[in-house]
């Protein structure tokens, strides 16, 4: 049975993240919910019967729960989110285990005797210092109980047997008890101070992690802004007929080698002009150094030929316009005899080819005005 399904948080204050939910570092609420869920799960885990609160078990449980939760994260943030969950889970487990242990220690030390000492057999934890494991505590508690029973028995026997040494024994017992109490108090105090220090350290660590997270988020934002601020290249629709101010398309094609030589086809083109294609032969390996001089020659040649191409293009456009005008003039003349508007015809002849559309309506319009039906029926 999954712990996540068992845990139900306090809905008034914070909700537990359901499995499969998306978590991102930018959303602080989600991070807080994640921390809350980790802590709640830790509390329930300790309360479950048969669970042994060890470091190894805690870590394993945390990893299992993380895998079972199947929280969705960005690839770049997954590690951080996982660390947040696991660290908070483990911290809560330690806090609960420490709190549960400290009142038991006090009860034991108050009743214990000189045999209770901090031995080297106790396990040492990084954060909590000298921490007695559960087994050792049980052994000690059993030993203390036995000691108490024994001491009580002994004291009773001593009192019964001898009265004079009884006072001495009592004094000694009192001294020992005082020493034990003082030592117990000291140990408790040291433990509490250590716990406090560790909590402070954990808080510092958490703050540092938060700082790191903020720095990382800021870095990610900077990267995204830099990516967004990349300029876009805009080409004008009508580029000037200058080699330096227009788009030049150059291609290099390496044909298969034949008898040790390799032919290179270079072509240069601008605007809608036909490409200027040239072929060269290279001996040996084809390297950019070998290609560069030929490419430069091709560019220079095209640069010199570009004005000629432009002039040819303009001439063709003019010739094409003149031919169209002649055609239109032949069409207009038979319609002029039926009309009495010579002025409009002159205007039509003088217009350029671009205004052909304007010529036609100016010629057609008087026809429609005078004899619209004639124009439709060809009269």
């Amino acid at each position, binding site marked *: 049975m999954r712990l996540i399904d068992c845990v139900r948080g306090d809905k008034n204050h914070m909700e537990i993240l359901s499995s499969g939910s998306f978590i991102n570092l930018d959303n602080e609420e989600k991070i807080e919910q994640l921390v809350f869920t980790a802590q709640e799960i830790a509390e329930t885990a300790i309360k479950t019967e048969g669970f042994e609160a060890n470091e190894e078990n805690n870590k394993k449980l945390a990893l299992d729960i993380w895998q079972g939760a199947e929280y969705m994260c960005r690839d770049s943030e997954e590690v951080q989110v996982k660390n947040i969950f696991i660290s908070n889970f483990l911290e809560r487990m330690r806090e609960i285990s420490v709190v549960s242990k400290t009142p038991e220690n006090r009860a034991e030390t108050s009743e214990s005797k000189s045999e209770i000492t901090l031995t080297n057999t106790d396990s040492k934890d990084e954060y909590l210092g000298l921490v007695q494991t559960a087994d050792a505590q049980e052994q000690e508690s059993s030993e203390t109980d036995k000691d108490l029973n024994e001491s009580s028995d002994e004291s009773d026997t001593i009192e019964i047997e001898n009265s004079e040494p009884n006072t001495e024994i009592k004094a000694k017992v009192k001294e020992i008890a005082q020493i034990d109490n003082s030592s117990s108090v000291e140990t408790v105090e040291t433990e509490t101070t250590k716990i406090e220090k560790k909590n402070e350290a954990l808080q510092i660590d958490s703050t540092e992690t938060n700082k790191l997270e903020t720095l990382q988020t800021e870095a990610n934002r900077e990267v995204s802004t830099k990516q967004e601020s990349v300029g876009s290249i805009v080409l004008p629709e009508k580029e000037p007929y200058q080699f330096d101010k227009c788009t030049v398309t150059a*291609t290099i094609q390496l044909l298969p080698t*034949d008898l040790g030589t390799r032919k290179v086809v270079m072509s240069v083109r601008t605007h809608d002009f036909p490409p200027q294609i040239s072929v060269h032969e290279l001996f040996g390996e084809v390297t950019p150094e070998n290609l560069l001089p030929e490419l430069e020659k091709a560019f220079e040649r095209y640069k010199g030929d570009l004005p000629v191409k432009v002039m040819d293009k303009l001439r063709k456009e003019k010739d094409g316009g003149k031919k169209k005008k002649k055609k239109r003039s032949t069409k207009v003349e038979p319609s002029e005899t039926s009309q009495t508007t010579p002025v409009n015809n002159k205007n039509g002849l003088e217009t350029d080819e671009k205004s052909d559309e304007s010529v036609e309506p100016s010629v057609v319009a008087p026809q429609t005005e005078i004899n619209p039906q004639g124009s439709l029926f060809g009269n």
Partner: protein
Amino acid sequence: MTQKTSERSPADTVKNLPDKSKNAEITEPMARVKIEGQEFELEANLAKDDKILKTVLQPHFASVENANITRNIKDGRLLITIVKKAQYKGR
């Protein structure tokens, strides 16, 4: 550089002149190519074979891939006319 006739694609409707006649009649080193309403000169060695011709013109004229290529020789100069071929509907 030799080109095998078997390497030509079946979609090409090329009307090539026989090699012998080419070598005998073509005297001009530069051929004249007409494509998409433009005319320009190209080395005759590149214009003799369809595959090389398409390879050379492909970067500038994408329609040459499935175009009809016709060759003629006039006054020792090789004239090439390339007419693009419309694909079937839906392509």
